[in-house]
């Protein structure tokens, strides 16, 4: 999957906005949204939030976890743990990327947040790489990957799956099951 497609999936996540307009409930195919009244926070899908913000029709409310102190704690926890820790959002990377791009002015300490999220991402990707190496060198043929997010998995997908597909053939060589599509 293309990262843009992973982002497409993340864009249906709900986020809170504070609109500056009045509008009755909108009956979208994907569900009802609104009503909208100025200054009253309301939940909308991320794609809509980004578009409304671009049209200067709202202010974005950062998700709870998008907070310098919380992210610092998260980073520490990720550093201390041998395993992957649970992220506050399965789309933390995509959400950060989209919100910080379109609504930097609505997010306090945006730069710091950007750096912290990127640090956490880098920590996790480094961890992912070394666990992949361990996995490949071991005799294991499957693994549990709890707490990894779709975007994280996606950055190693073809590489990892191709390597494992190749190893499956090489393993079958040893056990004498030669797979063949032709002679």
């Amino acid at each position, binding site marked *: 999957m293309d990262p843009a497609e992973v982002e*497409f999936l993340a864009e249906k996540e709900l986020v809170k906005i504070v609109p500056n307009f009045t509008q009755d409930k909108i009956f979208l195919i994907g569900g*009802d949204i609104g009503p909208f009244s100025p200054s009253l926070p309301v939940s909308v899908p991320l794609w*809509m939030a980004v578009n409304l913000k671009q049209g200067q029709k709202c202010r974005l409310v950062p998700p709870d976890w998008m907070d310098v102190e919380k992210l610092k704690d998260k980073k520490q926890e990720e550093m201390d743990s041998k395993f992957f820790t649970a992220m506050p959002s399965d789309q933390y990377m995509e959400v950060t990327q989209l919100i910080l791009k379109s609504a930097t002015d609505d997010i306090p300490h945006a730069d710091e947040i950007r750096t912290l999220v990127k640090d956490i991402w880098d920590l996790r990707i480094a961890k992912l790489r070394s666990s992949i190496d361990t996995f490949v060198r071991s005799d294991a043929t*499957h693994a*549990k990957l*709890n707490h990894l997010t779709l975007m994280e998995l996606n950055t190693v997908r073809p590489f990892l799956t191709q390597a494992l597909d190749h190893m499956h053939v090489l393993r079958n060589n040893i056990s004498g099951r030669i797979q063949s599509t032709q002679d």
Partner: protein
Amino acid sequence: MSELEEFGDESSEEVEVLTAAEVLSKLEQAWADEKFAPDLLEAKTDLVECMLEQINEMEENIQRAKRGDFKVSLHRMEIDRIRYLLSSYLRCRLMKIEKHTTHILEQEQMRKEEENSRLSPEEYTFAKEYQASMEGHFKNIALRHMPPNLQSLDPKQTAVRPNLDSYVFLRVAEDTQGVLVEEETVDTGEEIVDLEKGDQHIMRYRPVVPLVASGAVTLI
């Protein structure tokens, strides 16, 4: 569009009633599964038709709306997203049909009556035509000029088949006990795992083929 949509699920006797939003989210899952599965999955013809109807209806409503109505742009954006989803989903299927044509048509021929088809009727027509055009091309340029005993194509030899042993990422949607991940070999014993709801795994696709079909696991 909050009214309930009648939605027939062929696999069960009673008619399931799903909201449009539920159909949409099922379609999103079907899209992801199709993207990640090495073989062609069952055609979700009902989901596709239902969503197409929804966006066509919405387009009509928009035509009637007042010019400059603020809501319209939001509806349009949603339509664009759904059209992308449908189109990407069907494109992905078409690529597989083109690549594994012979294999897929063989499967279709061997299909038991109680099983759902992997191909929508339109896809089936396309697959047949595609197959005929490829074979016609081979025959015209090459096969008919070859010695008599070499003029035919043996699907056993030439069919391009999906690699069911390729690795996939999955998330467990329903607890499933005793999945045979590796068969016993000379050097190692068999390996069985229990899949617990919410867990994520990487493993070969083959052992989970029926679980993807039933929705007990989803591909990620």
